[in-house]
């Protein structure tokens, strides 16, 4: 990596669900060319953090910068158009559309032209090319005509990533992309993440510790909404506080 290029930065993000502080003054930076994993027990605030960064929920305090711009007050669609892609922990696809149409619709977000009502969406070459490209990168090129609802669980997770890629994001926020995947599928997904990291900044929320320590360049550990450590995998593994709170003493 020639020099660090920070694509997403957040400062002192705080969010409360009623009296519960779900995210407590979290700051982090996502660099191009690196996978930044966020780990923590259930309820540590990881998904809420992703929701705040992507603009799905507004934070009570703090600041989010995307590609050097302050996007704190921006809506989710506006952030997405500016280059922020996200995947969901619970698969969020269009089950009654084909795989290709799923990806095409996501790619259409980059060329919406809603006023061209007489023009067939299926003839928009740019978004179809982008959709095929995204499906192929996610390993779904054989299944373009399959209805998304009929895919296996692992394939749906791949489609989730493809939907993300089809919008050509610079930053990827991936919420447990490996959940429920088989060993082979996990391997494929990790290879994909390795490829993607060259030109994206990736935030990875994941429970699979083997995978996290294999692929992450930096790990942030959250407990009760707060960050207790943020460092390289080696340092995090050796951190006594993290061992106590999360990894267990072995």
């Amino acid at each position, binding site marked *: 990596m020639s020099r660090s290029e920070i694509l997403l930065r957040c400062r002192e993000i705080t969010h409360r669900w009623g009296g519960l502080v779900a995210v407590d003054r979290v700051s982090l930076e996502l660099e191009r060319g690196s996978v930044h994993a966020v780990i923590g027990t259930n309820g540590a605030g990881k998904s809420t953090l992703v929701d705040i960064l992507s603009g799905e929920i507004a934070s009570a305090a703090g600041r989010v910068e995307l590609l050097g711009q302050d996007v704190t007050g921006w809506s989710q669609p506006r952030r997405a158009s500016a280059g922020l892609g996200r995947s969901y922990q619970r698969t969020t*696809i*269009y089950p009654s559309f084909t795989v290709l149409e799923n990806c*095409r*619709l996501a790619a259409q977000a980059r060329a919406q032209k*809603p006023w061209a009502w007489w023009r*067939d*969406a299926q003839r928009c070459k740019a978004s179809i090319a982008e959709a095929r490209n995204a499906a192929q990168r996610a390993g779904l090129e054989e299944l373009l005509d399959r209805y998304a609802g009929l895919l296996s669980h692992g394939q749906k997770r791949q489609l989730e990533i493809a939907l993300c890629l*089809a*919008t050509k994001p610079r930053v990827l926020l991936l919420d447990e992309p490996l959940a429920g995947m088989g060993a082979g599928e996990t391997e494929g997904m990790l290879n994909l993440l390795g490829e993607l990291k060259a030109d994206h900044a990736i935030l990875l929320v994941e429970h699979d510790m083997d995978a996290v320590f294999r692929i992450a360049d930096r790990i942030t550990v959250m407990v009760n909404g707060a960050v207790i450590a943020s460092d390289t995998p080696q340092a995090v593994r050796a951190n006594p506080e993290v061992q106590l709170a999360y990894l267990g003493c072995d």
Partner: protein
Amino acid sequence: MDRSGALFAVLAFLALAAVPAVAGSFGVDLVTKIMIYAIFALSLELLAGSTGLVCFGQAAFFGIGAYATVLLSPQHGPPSLVWMLPASVLCAAAYALIVGALSLRTKGAYFIMVTLAFAQMAYYVVHDTPLGGGTDGIYLATKPVLGPWLDLNKPLAFLGFTLGCQAAVFVFLALLLRSRFGRALAGIRVNEQRMRASGFSTYPYKLAAFVISGAIAGLAGFLFAVKDGFVTPELLSWHLSAAVLVMVILGGLGHLRGALIGAFAFALLQEFFQSEAIFGAFARHWHLGLGLTVIACVALLPHGLVQVPGQLRERLLGRAQRSATEMRNEPL
């Protein structure tokens, strides 16, 4: 739209164009009325079927289009179609813009209730104020004409004009739904969260769909006012909103031709159960027969009448391709 859908539409429009050759004046009047309902149902199909927004106040736009026609037409001499029609449609669209802008901030059952509330508001304005002649309604002084070429006083000319409107609305919606705008609406129906995460601001899309739908309902209202020559507050009542919703569901949500089929099925069933020649004195209780038939249809055909050919095919071919057929029955 798939090939069988297009074929159905072409055949249906040809059949409707042939109506005057076989039907008497009663038949022409009935078919004209049903085609107006079909346009009305198409307007709701865009919202409920294609975008997933169940609007329970569609009659407001229909009624406002009808009232605008009567209130805006001059007292002396026939008004020109060229400005009467757009004026009525614009009035309905303007109300749809207001209702949509506010109601689309809610979701699900709340959206249904809010659209109903706005429709009831419009209903009571025409019902309880002298603006629209109160409960008695008002008469249209003279029917609009288009120069010397088209006189909507003549039933056949009016049938032809209504058929033309219906075809134009159908083709417009078919094109709209396959365009990027239409695909975005479909995406919003299936998974709005993903649409927003992909970068679509879904609110303007839904509002645009709402206004287009209101405008088409206003067109149907215009035609209704011209056909009968008078308007009453009942045109804005929730009964009509419910009836058009039943039409769309009966025909099959998510298919344009479902709205046409549903409008015809609903109106013909109503005629059937109201017929004293068949039911004698029991015809007074036509709501019962109609209601039970609609319930039976919805129970046996959850995807509506458009599903009938697919179900027959499945019966004949066995259940091997069941899951695939099921997916295909989902509106695309």
